[in-house]
């Protein structure tokens, strides 16, 4: 009986969240790696599966972080615009 290591996390939930909520191609890349994690694991390529798992996590986090950055920049711009409007007495 072969000693099976535990299945690496495929981060599928993170990948779907980043695809739906961040609409960046990085989310799709993350889903592709999630797919590779499970099929490589089932084929017995445990080291490769482990690497794909790390990639899925990285791409998922990159996608979420990028979206977060875009949001923060946009809200900062709005914040400045609103303060400027208040200062000008437009409100």
């Amino acid at each position, binding site marked *: 009986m072969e000693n099976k290591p535990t299945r690496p996390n495929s981060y599928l939930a993170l990948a779907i969240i980043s695809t739906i909520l961040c609409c960046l191609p990085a989310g799709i890349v993350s889903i592709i790696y999630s797919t590779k994690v499970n*099929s490589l694991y089932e084929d017995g390529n445990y080291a490769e599966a482990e690497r794909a798992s790390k990639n899925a996590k990285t791409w998922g986090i990159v996608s979420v972080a990028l979206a977060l950055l875009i949001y923060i920049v946009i809200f900062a711009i709005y914040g400045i615009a609103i303060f400027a409007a208040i200062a000008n007495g437009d409100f």
Partner: protein
Amino acid sequence: MATSRLRLFLYIIIAILLISAVSLYFFVNPSSEEIQLFPKCPFYSFTGLYCPGCGSQRAIHDILNGHFIEGLRHNYLFILLGFVLGYEALTFIRLTLFKKETYNVIHTSKFTIMVLVIVLVFWLLRNLPLYPFTELAP
């Protein structure tokens, strides 16, 4: 010790961000003309094509306000997201509270490949300007 404290700090920040985002999306309608607070999808702005995530801001607003059907019609991928998150939560609860292993469909290669295909096909179809597919557009 330091790492666990850092982790707690990170969780608190994520919780604060989530709560403020949820309340923002609850009160402000992303499709309103007066308050254009939320950013438009960068992919849509550049290419004029919808991405798999387009409509999710409107969907979140509608779902938070209890309009589930309207919300889902903005982005049908929320059904998939709900299924995956629900299944993972159920697996986690069964393992931690009842010490029972669940056969996890999500961790099979068939399911993940299916998700990839669904997302890609959904992406393609929602950009077709023909009748049954226009329903998929945000």
